[in-house]
Every structure is written in C-alpha cells, then in structure tokens.
C-alpha cells in the first residue's frame, strides 16, 4: 500500500485528485491548495472534504445564525454558560446545577437502515452531552415519516422505533418524550431527530480544547473500522470509480452499526474521569470522526498538535490514513490529558474495560501534524479545517407559488354541522395517524430507568427530578407543525416555539432555553433558503419575545425526495425548570374529586394547515393560526402561579385537533368521563376543532375555581368554563351534541398504530 505523504504531494503537484467525488466544488479545492501552498495529500483531502461538507461546516446556514446572536438580550445571556458553537448549550438552573441539552438529526442513515440509523443517532447525541462533562439524564426522539399506511413506512417506522429504543434502553436513559408525525413529504426522507439532556455542577463544565504543550491526546472507546467512510473509499481506488473489481477497496455502505453497551461503559468511564479531575477536556467523535475531533481540539486550544495515526486501534486490516481519519465508527471519544495524569486515566479505562491509546500530543507550533509511521501525511493549520471552511450566502427567493398556497384557504371546505356528524368527526380525528395514541411507539422505550422520571409520555412535557434532596427538576418538550411552517415559515417556526413553550408551561415548569433542529430541503434551492431564513428569523425574534435563548442546535439540509423538499421542519425543543417536581401538573383529569374544566385563551376560526383540513379534506392552504407570544408568556405565568398555589389539578395544551382532541386525551389518559358545554356565541365546529394557538385546557378543583378564575381575570387572560369532570361517567358528553363512550374513543385512539404496525 503506498501512502500519499506531504513530501509526495510536494513533488507531484499535478496529480489528479477526486475532489468532486468527495463533494468539494472546484473553488473549494482551489482554496485548499492555496491554504497549503501545494496540493493536499489524500488524507488532507479527506479531512477537508468532510469538514467542509454542509453537515460539518454549516456553510449555507452559518450566515443566518447571526439572527440568534443579534436577538440575545442581557436577560437571555445571563443564564447561558455555553451557547451556539459548543458541543451543546449549557444553562444555569440554580442551586449550582447546570443543564446541557441538544437535538440532532440522523435522517438519511435512518432511511437507508432504520434500526441502526436511529440507534446511532441516539448514540451520537448522547456523546455530545457527555463531552460537556455532564451525566446524561434522558433522551427524546422527534420522528417524521411518510404516510402512515404507505408500505415503506411499515419498513422504516418499526425499525426506527426499535433502534431508538434498543440503543436508549441499553444506555439506561429514560425516554421522556418526542413526536411522531406522518406526512407524504417525508416518504423518501424520514426525519429522526434525537435529543439528549444532561446535568452537571456549574463548576464542572468542561469545554474541550487542546491546550498546554506536552499534554497527551488519548483516543478511547471502540476500535476504528471501515464504517461510514462511503465517500472516502474513492481515494483507495485507482480509478476513483470504486466498484471496478480491481481488488482495491469497494465502495462501502455509509452505514454504521451501534454498540450501546460499549457506549454505556464509555459514559461511566467518562464520568469517572471527569470526577477524578484527570482530563483537560473530552471531545466526542461524531460525524467526521478523527478529522473533526483532532482539528476541533487543536483549533480550540492554544498550540498545535501531533497525531501518530498508526497508534489508532483498528478493527479492519489495511486501512489508509485517509480512511482512519474519516471513519465514523461509533462509541469513540478523544481526551486531552496532562502527562502526569495519563496513568490514572488508563487505570480508569482499564476498570471499565475500555480500550484507550495515546495517539498524540499538544505541541508548541500552530500546525496539526499527522504522521503515519514517521511519514507526514497531514500538515495543516487546524482552524482552516475546523472553522474557516467556505461560507455561502445562498440565493433566497420566496417561492412563486407561495401566494397561491395562501390564497387557497380552508374557508370553502365543507364543515360538519349536524350533531351526529360532529361527533363522528371527533372519533375520526382521534383515530387519525397524527392524533392517535403514540403508545405503540412509547411502550418500546424505558421511561423509568434511574428513578427520576416524574412525567413522560403521554404527558405534554417530560419531566426529570435532578436533585433528590431539593426535588428540583427540569421539563422538556419538542414540537413542530410542518404544515404551518410551509404556509408561513416565519409564523410556523414561532408556532412550533410557542407550542413547545406551552407544553413545558402546562407541566408546571418555567421555560428557560431552546435547542432546535432545522430540517429543510436543498439549500441550493432559493425557495428552500427562503423558508430557512424566515424560520430562523421567526425563532430568533420569538425567543427574544419569550426571553429564552437558543443555546444550540443542528441544521439538516438536503431532506428531499427527488426534487421535492420535505415540509420545512424546524423542530424546537424547549427546556424548563421546576423548583419542586412534586407540584408537577399531570395531563389526565380526574385525579381530584370534583374538578371544573376551564379553557384558557381565545378560540378563533383558524383552520389553515389544521389537522382537520388534512385528515378530512387532504387540504393544505391558507394562513396558519395567529401567533401571540405575549399570550404564551402570560399562560405560562398563570399556570406557574396556579401550580404553586395548588389551584390546578391537570392541564393539557391545545394543539393539533383543537379542543376536541384535548378533551379526548384528557379523559382517556385520566380514565375519567366529563361533561362539556360549548359557548352559544360560536359554532360548535369551530370551538371543537379550531387550532388557535395560546390555549390550554385546565382542570381545577371546584374549591379553587373562583380563586383561579379571579387570577385569570385580574391578569387579563381570557378564560371560559367548558365543563366538569365526572369520575362516575363512562363517557365524554358534549351538551347539545350527545355522548361519546370512552370505550369507543379508546378503541379509536389506541387502535390505529397497532393496526398499522403490528
């Protein structure tokens, strides 16, 4: 095997290189040559091509992130210990505790190999959290699939769910929430967004960097194999064509197989290393493997770095330096360790049976130098790899058909008016794939492990107790309605933010920070870039209004089937804090005898992008519901006060499917009947199915009713009494319309996913 060295590159300047096959544009390749003053070696080319890819360099999205930083106020900055740019954002939640959380996509791999794609998605995000020095607390998964009854969904969904569960369950991380959404636009491009949240003491925050000449670089965890090096395998073939039977490396599938056990042990090992204070920093190996870890560590530090690549423990024979640098083998971490701590480091690894190898050291210089058996194969300024990649100001253009989409509103759609038809619609909606019970999915996830889970599915938000002495805890929810975002990306993104914020509020927690995962089509399509830019601005402006910062996130472009992009899907995760988890608000009604049901907020005739239009008419058009973030904030404050004073016994936010769906869920989850009365001022259909934002259904003990409604009135939050809880009753009764038996509703709501996927 002949290895392309720097020396060789200097003497063969004209050697043709397969940079286009590696995804680099002509001008990007020219820039690499300019930076190096020569052609790159194979290994350098592999590094630059991966690190300058859209996924790693954020080259199309970077310029838009300024909206986030520009919208930060001092209030928002105050609690942020680490923000955008770190592995994951970190916020101070009081009592010396800090929380770190992040959402990340693993969309494409999950389409190719659903189980492993989703599993390694969970594994990757968990490593991001460990790298911050935190103990992972819980995971969530936000999923989008094609039509529920499409044959390919039957291939993809069960695999993805089993993968999320298989990996997360084995790590011992409770799964406390997520989403499952079906829409045709995701048919060839499902979305698998995984979230992990972790906890640490404020003083233990570790930001990875390679400082201090003489410090050692230690690679630990799994061996490095040929996983996920699909693209780079062209470097190993003479012809660049790959599958030519020349005996050279075949083009390999870009699929990785996860080993959750190895990751579990790695977590414990890292926690012990942090606890013993024997690491300067730890960097996870994610998408771009060693290329990313070495260049990021080096550029975050104050010196250079020398890596001896032949010391990397391998799983396959004959791997080239380029392949080793770009392997995406899972369950690996890289640590920077002072020389005097290396022995202690190795002892901890030995205790956990974790393979660890010293692969290099921090040097005085400013270069990242990588050698392979004494030959220099990489010699680069690390910042040019990790941070100074290309940045694009992609063309932006509002789609030509956006006006037509908006003009085609839901007004002309036939609405049920007869009592029987409205009741039937309630059942149809409850059984529709997007509204039906998620139990078939969530039942495959361990939500109990570690004993801190206070709320999980089917609650609006997941909640974890982080301190058993004080009962301090956190809550999390993720949301996004892609149909709203399609109709108006700015407002739609804010609606996603509003919904996640509201879901956290109804649990009794106070929202404090945001992480997002922006899933869009091709950035080379000006219409997609318009959606993207609008959505980012919507989120940034919305966060400013809500006073909570975006602390991190992830961008996933090129989500499309052929040339058709997915619905723009900026998934928003909102983190909340609760000082005492014992006052959490459950979703199901009926926990207390004699509850009154109140509807907080305004209900307008808003059906653009609604689930009803989608389910009953297959229609998407018009404008999404109005956003009122001040109202969301007020709702949050009222719920907090209500929960503090024991005035609220249950709360459920209204979103897809409107009041009808919220009532069905509150009854079924609480296993209790209810009697509901509608307002005579507005038609029954609108009251039941409108998706106006900023609304919550609350149950208050009758004894607290007056106190609670007085508070709402005093704070100018519109409220209306919509019914009473009836624990004796076996039905949901709606005055003037009739009764729905809970048994029938349950069969409809719970039957759908098992019928589709069992």
């Amino acid at each position: 095997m002949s290895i392309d060295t720097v020396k060789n590159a200097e003497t063969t300047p004209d050697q043709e290189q397969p940079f286009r096959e590696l995804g680099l544009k002509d001008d990007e390749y020219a820039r690499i040559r300019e930076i190096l003053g020569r052609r790159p070696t194979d290994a350098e080319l592999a590094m630059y091509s991966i690190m300058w890819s859209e996924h790693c360099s954020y080259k199309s999205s970077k310029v838009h992130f300024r909206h986030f930083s520009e919208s930060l106020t001092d209030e928002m900055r105050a609690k942020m210990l680490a923000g955008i740019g770190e592995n994951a954002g970190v916020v101070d939640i009081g009592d010396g505790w800090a929380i770190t959380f992040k959402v990340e996509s693993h969309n494409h791999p999950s389409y190719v190999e659903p189980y492993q794609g989703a599993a390694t998605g969970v594994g990757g995000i968990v490593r991001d959290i460990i790298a911050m020095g935190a103990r992972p607390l819980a995971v969530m998964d936000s999923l989008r699939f094609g039509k529920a009854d499409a044959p390919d969904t039957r291939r993809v969904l069960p695999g993805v769910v089993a993968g999320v569960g298989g990996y997360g369950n084995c790590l011992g991380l409770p799964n406390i929430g997520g989403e499952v959404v079906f829409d045709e636009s995701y048919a060839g491009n499902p979305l698998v967004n995984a979230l992990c949240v972790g906890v640490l003491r404020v003083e233990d925050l570790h930001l990875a960097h390679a400082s201090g000449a003489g410090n050692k670089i230690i690679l630990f965890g799994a061996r490095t194999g040929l996983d996920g090096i699909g693209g780079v395998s062209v470097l190993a073939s003479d012809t660049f064509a790959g599958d030519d039977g020349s005996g050279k490396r075949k083009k390999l599938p870009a699929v990785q197989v996860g080993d959750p056990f190895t990751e579990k042990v790695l977590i414990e090992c890292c926690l012990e290393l942090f606890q013993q204070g024997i690491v300067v920093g730890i960097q996870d190996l994610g998408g771009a493997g060693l290329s990313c870890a070495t260049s990021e560590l080096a550029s975050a530090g104050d010196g250079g770095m020398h890596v001896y690549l032949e010391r990397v423990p391998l799983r396959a024979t004959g791997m080239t330096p380029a392949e080793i640098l770009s392997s995406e083998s899972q369950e690996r971490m890289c640590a920077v360790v002072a020389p005097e701590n290396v022995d202690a480091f190795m002892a901890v690894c030995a205790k956990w049976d974790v393979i660890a190898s010293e692969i290099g050291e921090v040097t005085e210089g400013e270069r990242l130098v990588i050698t392979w058996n004494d030959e220099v194969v990489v010699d680069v300024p690390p910042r040019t790899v990790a941070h100074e990649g290309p940045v694009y100001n992609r063309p932006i253009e509002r789609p030509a058909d956006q006006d037509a989409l908006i003009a085609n509103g839901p007004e002309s759609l036939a609405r049920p008016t007869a009592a029987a038809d409205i009741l039937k619609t309630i059942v149809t909606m409850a059984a529709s794939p997007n509204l039906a019970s998620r139990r078939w999915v969530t039942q495959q996830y361990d939500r109990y492990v570690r004993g801190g889970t206070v709320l999980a599915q089917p609650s609006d938000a997941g909640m974890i107790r982080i301190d058993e002495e004080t009962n301090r805890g956190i809550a999390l929810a993720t949301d996004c309605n892609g149909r709203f975002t399609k109709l108006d990306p700015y407002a739609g993104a804010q609606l996603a933010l509003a919904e996640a914020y509201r879901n956290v509020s109804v649990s009794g927690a106070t929202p404090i920070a945001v992480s997002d995962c922006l899933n869009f089509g091709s950035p080379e399509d000006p219409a997609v870039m318009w959606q993207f830019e609008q959505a980012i601005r919507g989120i940034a402006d919305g966060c400013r209004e809500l006073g909570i910062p975006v602390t991190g996130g992830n961008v996933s472009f090129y989500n499309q089937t052929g040339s058709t992009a997915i619905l723009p899907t900026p998934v928003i995760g909102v983190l909340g804090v609760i000082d005492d988890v014992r006052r959490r608000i459950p979703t199901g009604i009926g926990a207390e005898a004699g509850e009154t049901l109140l509807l907080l907020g305004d209900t307008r005739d808003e059906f653009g992008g609604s689930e009803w239009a989608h389910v009953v008419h297959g229609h998407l058009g018009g404008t999404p519901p109005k956003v009122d973030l001040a109202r969301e904030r007020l709702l949050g404050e009222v719920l907090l006060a209500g929960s503090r004073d024991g005035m609220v016994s249950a709360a459920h936010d209204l979103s897809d499917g409107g009041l009808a769906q919220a009532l069905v869920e509150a009854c079924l989850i609480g296993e209790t009947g209810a009697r509901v009365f509608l307002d005579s001022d507005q038609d029954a259909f609108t009251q039941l199915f409108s998706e106006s934002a900023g609304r919550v259904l609350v149950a208050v003990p009758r004894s607290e009713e007056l106190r609670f409604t007085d508070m709402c009135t005093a704070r100018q939050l519109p409220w209306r009494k919509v019914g009473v809880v009836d624990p004796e009753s076996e039905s949901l009764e709606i005055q003037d319309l009739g009764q729905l038996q809970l048994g029938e509703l349950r069969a409809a709501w719970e039957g759908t996913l098992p019928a589709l996927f069992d």
Partner: protein
Amino acid sequence: MARVVVDVMPKPEILDPQGQAVANALPRLGFEGITSVRQGKHFELEVDDSVDDAALEKIAETFLANPVIEDWVVRRVGA
C-alpha cells in the same frame, strides 16, 4: 417437503457487537485460543417442494437478511 437452512451474518466490514462481546468474554471464562467470533442468525425452514431456489433466495434477501449490513447463505439440507 424439504429442509432449508439460511445463515445470516454481519458483513465483514460491519461492526459485530454480539460476536465481539462473546470474544471478549471467552478468555475471562477461561477459554483460550479463540481468536475471533462472529455471531449471526440461523434459520431452519420446512418448505413444500413447490418452493424453488429463486423463491428461497428472494425470501432470504428481502426478509431474513438485511442486505445493507448482512450477508447470507441458503442451503437445502437432507431430503
């Protein structure tokens, strides 16, 4: 009636955490000299004589194995 065996194995370049776990455990259990272990699935099918090799190949490829990460071998045994 025929008996058919299908063995499905992880592709050589793909990580095999199961085989790995076994290989790591053996020395701890006092068994030396096992240098590598791979673990896969073993299916035993009883099939009517009407089922031809092409059908079996199809079943293995589309259903018993996942061609993205696994290789497989179909063989008829006994009679």
